[in-house]
């Protein structure tokens, strides 16, 4: 069953997996918020590289794309809200080490046990020529409902997130009965209104 290429693949996946775990650990070791965030990004990129080694190009690349953007935005918030964002003043960034160690070890044991206990399916068909197309067919066919559900969830996220995040809403901008012709904004936007 093991061919030369799967041997290489296993080796690559193992190295990248270790890299991913190591940069995951680095998140909790470094003092700087920037370093912690980008260590986490490094971990995600290693996972993306594992996917790429498995020939799942679309999933790999989209993982790298989304995670980088998200980590860049996360860095903005981490640095805005955390004390000492550059880690220049030495201070510990971890709390409740014992509790989290227990939770972490427990999760590790459960997941590892899961990997060995689950009866993984064996591929019966040939490798598809184009996994991206297969994904599209699944999304537009059997998993359409999932996509629509996610659409509504994203819509709700946009509404709720904006509602919570903005201090000034439409009533502040257009007046109590929303009749103002131009919004009263301290800073103008790009549209003439």
């Amino acid at each position, binding site marked *: 069953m093991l061919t030369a290429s799967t041997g290489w693949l296993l080796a690559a996946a193992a190295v990248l997996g270790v890299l991913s775990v190591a940069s995951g650990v680095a998140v909790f070791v470094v003092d*700087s918020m920037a370093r912690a965030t*980008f260590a986490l990004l490094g971990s995600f990129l290693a996972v993306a590289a594992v996917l790429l080694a498995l020939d799942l190009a679309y999933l790999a*690349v*989209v993982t790298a794309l989304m995670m980088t953007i998200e980590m860049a935005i996360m860095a903005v918030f981490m640095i805005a809200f955390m004390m000492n964002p550059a880690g220049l003043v030495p201070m510990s960034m971890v709390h409740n080490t014992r509790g989290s160690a227990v939770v972490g070890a427990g999760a590790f044991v459960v997941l590892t046990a899961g990997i060995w206990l689950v009866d993984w399916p064996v591929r019966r068909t040939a490798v598809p020529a*184009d996994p991206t197309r297969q994904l599209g067919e699944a999304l537009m066919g059997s998993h359409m409902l999932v996509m629509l559900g996610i659409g509504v969830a994203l819509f709700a996220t946009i509404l709720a997130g904006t509602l919570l995040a903005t201090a000034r809403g439409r009533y502040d901008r257009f007046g109590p009965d929303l009749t103002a012709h131009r919004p009263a904004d301290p800073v*103008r936007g*790009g549209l003439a209104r």
Partner: protein
Amino acid sequence: MGETATLADAWGAVPAALVVVAVALALGWAVTATDRAVLAGGGPVPGPGRDAARLLLEQRRTTPAPDRLLWRLGCAGVAVLALASWAVVPLGSRSLWSTSADLVWFNAAEAVLWAAVWLVGWGPNAFAALTGGYRFLAQGLAYELPLMFALITAGLAAGSLRTTDVVAAQAGLWFVVTMPVAFVVFLAAAAAFAFWGPFDAPAGTDVAGGVTSELSGVDRLLVSAGRAVFLGAAAAMAVALFLGGGAGPWLPGPVWQLVKTLAVVALLVRAGRRLPLLRPDRAVEVAWVVVIPVVLLQALVVAVLVLAGFYG
């Protein structure tokens, strides 16, 4: 479209990669030279090659308490990502590397740039650089989705995310005819992620050069070269996605491709330098309320054409 031989298959991986890097650097050189010539308006300008040598001779700098690791990663990252984006740009009818998600790869190389540019701003622990880095992220919020929709529109018409398939699908008609909006948005977004021309706010004069303000020597070389190579890659990609790649009468494909790419570079530079800075706080509202709906409308038009069998 099935089996597409890549450049690596044809020439061997390392020679093909060497050729791609050489093309990428040459086009980056051309972009910089054009840009400087247009900016100087006829006067003499220092050539990019000479400037690169100057920067290699120049001392590097470091500031008190910088984040040296991240700073270095950011500078190197800009250059490496620019070259990495060339992996899927077709030269002739083949690209160096071909997967079922080429367009997403190009998009991802540019997305990882978010991190790299921000790190270049964060690294030196200096106010102007930091402000520039944050401006880049703010700008990214405006251009990222339009860019993505423009890429998707081209992939939609070709029914494939493989760049070589997209080129092949334009045998009958260049995509720019049916998707002019996507073409323009793609080029504008490219200027934005290379923070060049009217999207120069992250390195603007008003923040004394922003992310580049603390860079000297080889650090500055890597970041400026990376920006130029990215712009060149975007021009080459625009040719492949919208202008039929190497298609054209009389001349061989690669020549046509080169001619078209240089024409796109000239057009982009001329058009970009005619405009003042589009301030990111203004651009973001327009991007969301105008540009995204318009690009989506473009995608809808193309989708209907696809259903009608227009693209064969």
